[in-house]
């Protein structure tokens, strides 16, 4: 579901390490349907191939759909699989070779431009479902289109963001602990830096932020969305590392690192996970699916009530939303399209939110009291629904270039290297430049 959701499950990691076997084995073992996608008892089998946490299993949607359609057998697979390391390469290969993809597949925001570009790979959803445009804000609907304008994807969730923080650690450092007060204090990024300085000065022995990655990505999106929309690479594949968003986000990280406000916890590392339970850092930007999906399981019941969530600095953010699409190679594209439309409908988005916290992309679902008035008990009853809805309300859509993911990886790695002392801060931009050039050369032109 989300790029961030790298190692949502240890099982997923095991799968990643074992190579593509996990997905292909799951695909082969299915449940006994033959090549034309019909099971032995004559039902049409539809395979929904996903990554990360879409929440369909948790929300019981598989059984619900089968109860509504007694000629359909839904098989959901790939829950917990890593998007970037595992899922995307396998899906790309399947699309290229014309076989092996699911009947319905999930696509992460960072991959839509790349994967949707060729409309020949996808079943045209616009034919029967063009009226579903009304379920979405414009950008979520149009990002689900191929380069030639064919509608190929239905949006599922959006990654509304807030700040997850530890009240006990803030209190120990003499910072405000009330979420309203904090949101006001760090409504601007200068305000955020002031609080960071104050936390560091208190010298409580723990880090203020977890690490550079999450804050930098949040800032990158905000600056790009507010400005010319440019991040690392433009539409023609040229590096734009001098863009306001790239410069501003990296410089802010360097400044915060200078004052010692950034911890050395690489996102998704074992230490990062351990730090959430041990209180190793005080605050971290978090997408809507993170509080219940990541922090709560990592921190454990002992830390219930210590965490809280406040609105993020600046204009909020959107990190990691997804789409569902039907590959043209599906044996039953019409039935698959019907299933995809149902799974991504506002009512189901609400159910998924209730089950796993993925924030709905449909305004109607966002307005549903089950979403809008939702609170998170583990996070001191923070009104997460409200905070997340506000963060995506006015957030401008971002367009990711084909080359965004490799360059993003290069930038994040260099910044982690600055924090762990491998690179001097003054060399950061030079390192980013050379790593990004290599990434572009490998991923694109030339070789």
């Amino acid at each position, binding site marked *: 579901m989300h790029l961030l959701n790298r*190692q949502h499950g240890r099982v997923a990691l095991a799968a990643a390490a074992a190579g593509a076997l996990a997905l292909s084995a799951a695909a082969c073992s299915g449940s006994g349907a033959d090549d034309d996608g019909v099971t032995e008892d004559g039902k049409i089998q539809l395979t929904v191939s996903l990554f990360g946490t879409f929440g369909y299993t948790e929300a019981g949607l598989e059984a619900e759909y089968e109860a509504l359609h007694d000629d359909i057998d839904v098989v959901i697979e790939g829950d917990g699989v890593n998007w970037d390391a595992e899922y995307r390469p396998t899906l790309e290969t399947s699309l290229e070779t014309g076989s092996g993809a699911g009947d319905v597949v999930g696509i992460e925001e960072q991959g839509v431009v790349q994967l949707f570009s060729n409309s020949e790979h996808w079943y045209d959803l616009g034919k029967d479902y063009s009226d579903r445009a009304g379920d979405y804000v414009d950008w979520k609907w149009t990002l689900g289109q191929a380069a030639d304008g064919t509608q190929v994807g239905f949006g599922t969730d959006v990654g509304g963001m807030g700040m997850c923080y530890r009240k006990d650690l803030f209190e120990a450092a003499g910072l405000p602990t009330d979420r309203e007060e904090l949101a006001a204090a760090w409504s601007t990024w200068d305000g955020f830096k002031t609080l960071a300085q104050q936390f560091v000065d208190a010298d409580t022995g723990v880090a203020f932020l977890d690490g550079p990655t999450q804050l930098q990505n949040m800032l990158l999106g905000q600056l790009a969305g507010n400005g010319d929309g440019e991040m690392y690479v433009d539409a023609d594949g040229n590096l734009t590392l001098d863009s306001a968003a790239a410069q501003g986000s990296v410089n802010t990280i360097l400044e915060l690192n200078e004052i010692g406000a950034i911890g050395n916890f690489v996102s998704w590392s074992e230490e990062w996970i351990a730090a959430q339970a041990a209180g190793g850092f005080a605050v971290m930007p978090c997408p809507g699916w993170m509080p219940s999906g990541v922090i709560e399981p990592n921190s454990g019941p002992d830390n219930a009530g210590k965490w809280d969530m406040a609105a993020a600095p600046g204009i909020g953010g959107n990190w990691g939303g997804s789409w569902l699409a039907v590959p043209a190679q599906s044996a039953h594209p019409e039935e698959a399209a019907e299933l995809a439309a149902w799974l991504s409908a506002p009512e189901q988005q609400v159910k998924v939110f209730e089950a796993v916290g993925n924030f709905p992309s449909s305004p109607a679902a966002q307005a549903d009291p089950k979403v809008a008035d939702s609170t998170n008990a583990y996070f001191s009853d923070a009104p997460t629904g409200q905070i997340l809805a506000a963060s995506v309300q006015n957030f401008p859509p971002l367009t990711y270039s084909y080359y965004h993911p490799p360059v993003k990886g290069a930038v994040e790695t260099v910044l982690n290297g600055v924090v762990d002392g*491998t690179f001097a801060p003054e060399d950061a931009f030079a390192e980013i430049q050379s790593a990004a050039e290599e990434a572009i*050369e*490998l991923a694109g032109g030339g070789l």
Partner: protein
Amino acid sequence: MTTETAARAPKWRLWASKADIKATPYALVSPYFILFAVFGVFPMGYTLYASLHAWKLGGADPEYIGLDNYKFLLFEYDRFNWSVFNTLGMFIMATVPQLVVALMVANALNKRLRRPMLWRMLILAPIVTSVVAVGVIFARIWGQEYGMVNGFLELIGIDRIDWQAERWSSWIAISSMVDWRWMGYNALIFLAAMQTIPRNLYEAATVDGASPRQQFWQITVPQLKPVLIFTVFVSSVGGMTMFVEPMMFDSGRLLGGTDGQYQTTAMVLVDILRTHGNYGVSAAAGWLLFLVIGVVAAVNFLIVNRIQGNK
């Protein structure tokens, strides 16, 4: 008529039996060669073909570019050369102590012990644990803030070390993982070989007044030479294709630390394929790795082959 038929039949039989003698052995051994051709020769040939082309997943049709992919890896992409250095370094750091300790352990197990089976099972246990689980546990053991090793260091007054940040420290951590897993396997192979050494050699040596230490170096080690060559060869291939341990040490990432401190060549190969979708360069990296393994195996063979004993 009858005489003619009678003369013919044996001739036909003779031919059939000749064919049987000549062809049947080939037919019987052919499954291996067919499998080897399909899963060995063909992929290697195809990889060679891919390595000579600009070949991107989802890109234009492959275009012949000669040795450009190799040139890129060797002269432009620093990570590749560093990865060969890292791989060799970690191989030596992991394999030498591993084989020495395995030899010692096997020698100890070869003595008369209570419950020999139990000891042998225990020593083999690490090999049946999942390498991913081992990686997760070891990444925790060697963690900076919450790791066990740093906890001990702090107890004796040494500052916490960020094991992932430096080349030497990350290599130590990863070598510990490799050794923990594979030491027992090698020890068991050595043990099996030791048990085939004739007892009378030792008895004769004892009569001549040789100490146990002398017996070990003058009899056991030379007698183990073929097995030593085998384990060194297998360890070379395993060490040079090291992948999961360093990947898990970096929580599943393929870059081996913030600056490739512990990125092995196999990780570079997979990173180029997975992250960048570049078949051509990845295939070239595979062939270069193959050549490196060949050189390393040859060097190891020459070294081990020098082991001599007074026979």
